[in-house]
């Protein structure tokens, strides 16, 4: 009985780690060894898989594009979401509850439900297949979660803070930027990490809106469908490593913050 719990835990941990580790391991194997056996070792390691994936399969461009899209979206999303959440929590007016409800309701429905009209809108405003268009869509579809979480954090800050600062002569903006935003820092961390990971991995909207310039997940998915018949599994595995490494690195560095962020929508 005493060993049952650890054994159970370790079995599940192995089922998680083994497939991931196998992909990392296979990313430095030659295609011949990949087909030969999952356990065959290529010596010296076939680093050229990464070179092929990065250059020939254009995943390098996709990697940089994803980095740009994620960064830009975060830079626009966090201020915009904070402003909305703050105004909706500290400046209640008739209809502010309804607005909050409508904005957060977006979390219930998968974004692809609106794929057809969203695509048509992007074409109409001339932003389909552009960086700006994708960033705008990402910001719009990330607002629900961001506002939901930050609204919780701002609501928890006492109203007296604002009153005290106003008596000291602080305007609305300086109260928001100098007092409230620093106090909401834990919430900002949560939405920052959650969105950064989600956007780096995002697939649905990029798949619909981008035809020429691909993000890394879409680039990898296209590589999979092209190369599975050509048999270049080496570059496929290398591509998977490219998409996983940044997130897993972030996780290992900021373990507690990432765990907190992943659960934040659920428990506060």
């Amino acid at each position: 009985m005493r060993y049952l719990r650890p054994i159970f835990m370790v079995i599940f941990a192995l089922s998680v780690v083994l497939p991931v580790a196998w992909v990392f391991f296979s990313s430095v194997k030659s295609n011949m060894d990949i087909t030969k056996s999952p356990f065959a070792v290529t010596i010296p390691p076939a680093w050229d898989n990464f070179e092929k994936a990065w250059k020939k399969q254009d995943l390098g461009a996709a990697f940089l594009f994803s980095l740009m899209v994620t960064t830009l979206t975060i830079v626009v999303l966090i201020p915009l979401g904070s402003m909305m959440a703050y105004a909706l929590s500290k400046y209640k007016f008739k209809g502010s509850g309804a607005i909050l409800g409508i904005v957060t309701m977006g979390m219930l429905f998968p974004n692809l439900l609106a794929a057809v009209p969203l695509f048509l809108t992007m074409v109409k405003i001339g932003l389909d297949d552009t960086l700006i268009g994708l960033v705008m869509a990402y910001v719009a579809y990330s607002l629900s979660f961001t506002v939901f979480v930050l609204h919780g954090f701002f609501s928890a800050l006492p109203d007296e803070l604002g009153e005290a600062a106003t008596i000291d002569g602080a305007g609305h903006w300086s109260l928001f930027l100098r007092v409230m935003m620093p106090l909401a820092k834990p919430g900002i961390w949560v939405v920052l990490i959650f969105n950064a990971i989600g956007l780096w991995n995002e697939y649905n909207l990029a798949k619909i809106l981008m035809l020429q310039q691909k993000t890394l997940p879409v680039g990898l998915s296209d590589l999979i469908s092209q190369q599975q018949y050509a048999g270049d599994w080496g570059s496929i595995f290398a591509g998977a490593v490219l998409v996983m490494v940044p997130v897993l690195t972030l996780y290992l560095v900021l373990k507690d913050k990432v765990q907190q962020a992943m659960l934040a929508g659920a428990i506060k």
Partner: protein
Amino acid sequence: MAGQDIRRTGFVLACLVPGLVLYAGLVIVPFVRTVQLSTFRFSGVSTKMVPNGIENFQKLWESEQFWWALRNNFTILVVVAPILLALSMALAHAAVGDSKLARGMRTVYLFPNLISLVAAALIWRAVYHPTVGLLRSTGLKGPQDGWLGDLNTAFPSFAVAFIWVSMGFYTMLYCAGLAGIPAEVHEACELEGARGWRKYLWITRPLMWPVRRVAAVHVTIASLGVFALVNVMTDGAPSNRTETMLNALYRMMTIEGSFGKAAAMGVVMMCVTALSSAVLWVMFRKNPLEGRR
């Protein structure tokens, strides 16, 4: 006073308007327009839109793809998701606590939630693959067309990947819920001799009600919204056996080029989502502990 009011209103408007315009233009309006577009026949940006009433819905009704998609999402929701939650609950009971091992294991469990679904899909596609796969060399060669190529094994094989991808999140969630149960409750159980299944059913489970509700909402959204995993793993093959509603919508829009039919698919999915939310609301309407205080 009036000046202050104006400044206050100005501040609130400045905070809300930019975000709301973006949200309305790219989220609300497209969702509403999906309903309108579902009554037209058109196949792209430049083609003329011809009103065709409920023809798109009739086409859906007659297509096998639609029924498989509906059936598969339903199976994920009522069969796969409960298995996923039960496994997560069991694992959470094992992995709760502050021991070094438990903390380390919990760190590992979240990996699949953090990596891109495309990478997860690739991992499982590769694991099941008949010529390069991890399973083929461990004696689990599977059917002739591979685990994902066979009509009978494709869906269960996909379900395993779905559980693998999501289990870490629910385990963490349940661990947080379990850790939130006060020590006195455990002590009282010890004294009264309640343990094992009895303790779970009569003590732990009711106390976990708020967390279980959160899990139910999350798992419903995730079950109905399966896209990337299926799109990259199988794209619905073989013969629609792993088709889902969103993947069907995507294929109708891009490969078939029937925008109206894809919008109709979206409308059906909205109804299914709303209906599921209503069922959830009824199921988790009242905390069982609240009446007893």
